């Protein structure tokens, strides 16, 4: 029977062949496919040859040259640091603190929600009172501020400045120009070049 090309060995079959653990299917294919048999034999020879390659050794002074440029860790450092590159690995103490805070926050929030669900009428009453009191205070504040402004001696003069629509347009235009000028000046100030760092690259 001629083997199907789709049955040709996979990468893993070559590994299995080397370790003597071929599956029955792969073994059957091996026995019937000349191409795979030839490739597998050559592959095994190559693998064996690769393991005989020599390991090269650096010069005898290699170790001392490396050590001359290595800064030993301070003796107080007893374990690998908890930070690697841009990633943080938190210490156990930090983890314990974070867990405690999380438990307190989540516990409080849960208790609060449960209590609110059990006393809905009371909570609604409080909310209504709070809303009405806060709106009353806001309205009172607005009235007071307006009364204060209208009672000022300069208020009458100011009203004459925008008494007509032309004057009002002029005042608005002048305000816009002043505002734009201010923004441009701020941008220029913020865009001033920062001193360069010697280590930046």
């Amino acid at each position, binding site marked *: 029977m001629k083997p199907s090309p789709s049955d040709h060995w996979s990468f893993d079959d070559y590994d299995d062949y080397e370790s003597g653990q071929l599956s029955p299917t792969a073994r059957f294919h091996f026995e019937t496919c000349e191409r795979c048999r030839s490739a597998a034999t050559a592959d095994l020879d190559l693998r064996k040859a690769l393991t005989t*390659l020599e390991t090269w050794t650096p010069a005898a002074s290699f170790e001392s*040259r490396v050590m001359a440029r*290595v800064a030993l*860790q301070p003796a107080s*450092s*007893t374990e690998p640091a908890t930070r690697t590159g841009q990633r943080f*690995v938190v210490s156990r103490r930090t983890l314990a603190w974070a867990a405690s805070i999380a438990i307190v926050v989540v516990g409080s929030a849960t208790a609060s929600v449960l209590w609110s669900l059990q006393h809905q009428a009371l909570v609604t009453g409080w909310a209504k009172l709070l809303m009405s009191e806060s709106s009353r205070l806001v309205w009172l504040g607005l009235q007071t501020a307006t009364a204060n402004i209208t009672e000022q001696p300069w208020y009458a003069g100011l009203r004459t400045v925008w008494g007509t629509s032309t004057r009002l347009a002029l005042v608005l235009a002048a305000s816009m120009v002043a505002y734009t000028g201010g923004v441009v000046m701020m941008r220029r100030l913020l865009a001033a070049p920062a001193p360069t760092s010697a280590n930046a690259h």
Partner: protein
Amino acid sequence: MAESREPLTALTDQEVVALACQGIEAAYRELIRRYQRPVFSLIYRMVRNRELAEDLAQETFIKVLNAIASYRPEFKFSSWVFKIANNAAIDHLRRRELDTLSLDGSPHAETPDAVEATVLQVGDHQESPLETVEARELGSSIEAGIAQLRPEYRTCILLRHVEGRSYEEIAEIMGLPLGTVKTYIHRARNELRVILGHLRA
């Protein structure tokens, strides 16, 4: 002191690293001794220049040992070392554009002298120490063949079949998916078989 503890050679990488993190110099030296040969061999086979390979291996160890405190024990120390070594070699190859060294000289050589300087001479007795040794060794053809592979294939096949690393570790070292690593290694062996067949012919 380290001398009063059990011999460093009997400890695991993780244990030696923990001692290095305490500033024990002997632990640093032990790590260098454990990895200098495989790291140097890998880089040497990648860049094919002894002096340069020593420099890159030296930089690898300096980086590793100076950052020993940032090593995370959940990863294999060997993976970390090989990753830095491989990056050093690949970075160099990319910088110098000597990514593939042909038996007929570098494809990037622009002058006849440059072509002559980069020819990989198998069996010639008037060359650098690497080529001299290669000419005497049974594996000289394989060394020459490996030199013709793409850098990624070279790293994969060296780590797998010369250093005996697992597929998973190679994937971690190279930052590639496991399937890609298996494909690279399989293709590398196929290419190598073709190259060696050509040399025999």
